[in-house]
């Protein structure tokens, strides 16, 4: 029976590494998905200047951003459901029953405050958000089912440092984060498929 559980852990660890890969690729693509609308707004502003027709405005961008964020959060929930089921099951190595509730509450609080209190405190809230992402992803990695890899550290520590700094210096840091996350995602999927 113990041999059976050990076998199950080996299979689950391969699947969870692929889960992490999907998570990295998903959020690596977020800045591009969120900012497509900025490009559309800029184009429309150009059209308005020439033709005098208002197509888009900033409230539309906020609506788009919230929609994209909603889709990404829903997909993240869907992706991490396996992780949640494993860490709360009898296969668990370390018990973490309140993981899901605590994670959801933390992000809901930080994102709500960020939206309400606005852009002047963006550095503070982006730092809190980055700490949350890093902490919760590391806690999933160190749940005992997957082995931490250099690309996990690169993606998460890179995010922790560069995301808040992107609100101080340049948004180009978010492009760097995207590339690091997509790299970590591809490496994770390759490892999960036995080619890493």
């Amino acid at each position, binding site marked *: *029976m*113990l*041999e*059976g*559980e*050990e*076998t*199950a*852990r*080996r*299979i*689950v*660890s*391969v*699947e969870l590494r692929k889960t992490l890969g999907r998570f990295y690729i998903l959020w690596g693509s977020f800045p591009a998905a969120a900012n497509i609308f900025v490009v559309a707004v800029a184009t429309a502003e150009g059209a308005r200047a020439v033709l005098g027709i208002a197509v888009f405005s900033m409230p539309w961008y906020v609506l788009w951003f919230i929609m994209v964020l909603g889709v990404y959060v829903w997909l993240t929930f869907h992706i991490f*459901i*396996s992780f949640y*089921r*494993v860490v709360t*099951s*009898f*296969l668990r190595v370390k018990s973490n029953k309140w993981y899901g509730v605590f994670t959801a509450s933390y992000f809901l609080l930080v994102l709500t405050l960020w939206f309400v209190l606005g852009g002047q405190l963006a550095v503070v809230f982006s730092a809190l958000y980055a700490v949350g992402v890093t902490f919760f992803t590391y806690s999933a990695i160190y749940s005992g089912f997957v082995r931490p890899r250099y690309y996990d550290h690169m993606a998460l520590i890179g995010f922790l440092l560069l995301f808040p700094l992107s609100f101080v210096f340049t948004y180009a840091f978010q492009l760097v984060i995207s590339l690091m996350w997509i790299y970590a995602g591809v490496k994770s999927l390759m490892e*999960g*498929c*036995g080619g890493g």
Partner: protein
Amino acid sequence: MLELLRRYKLLNGNKLGILLALYHVEGYVTFSDLQSALDMPKSSLHKFLEEMKEMGLLEYRRAITDLGVRAVVRITKRGQEVVKEYAELIKKVKF
């Protein structure tokens, strides 16, 4: 518990492990992923999966995946019920 495992021919650790893992993983798992995780010969794994399919515990078939046509497995309703029963028995043993 032994009675449950004997009834479904799950006394083999690998077979029990496959069933437990599939219960926790959402959706299909490819044959090659199972093989790389278990590091066992293809023929033995195929035999295990066929036996478990005959017991109604798994769905085992070829399907179109991102990587092309692959053999895939997924746990069935009956398989899920067996794992739930096993988990209940394990809880009683562990606590």
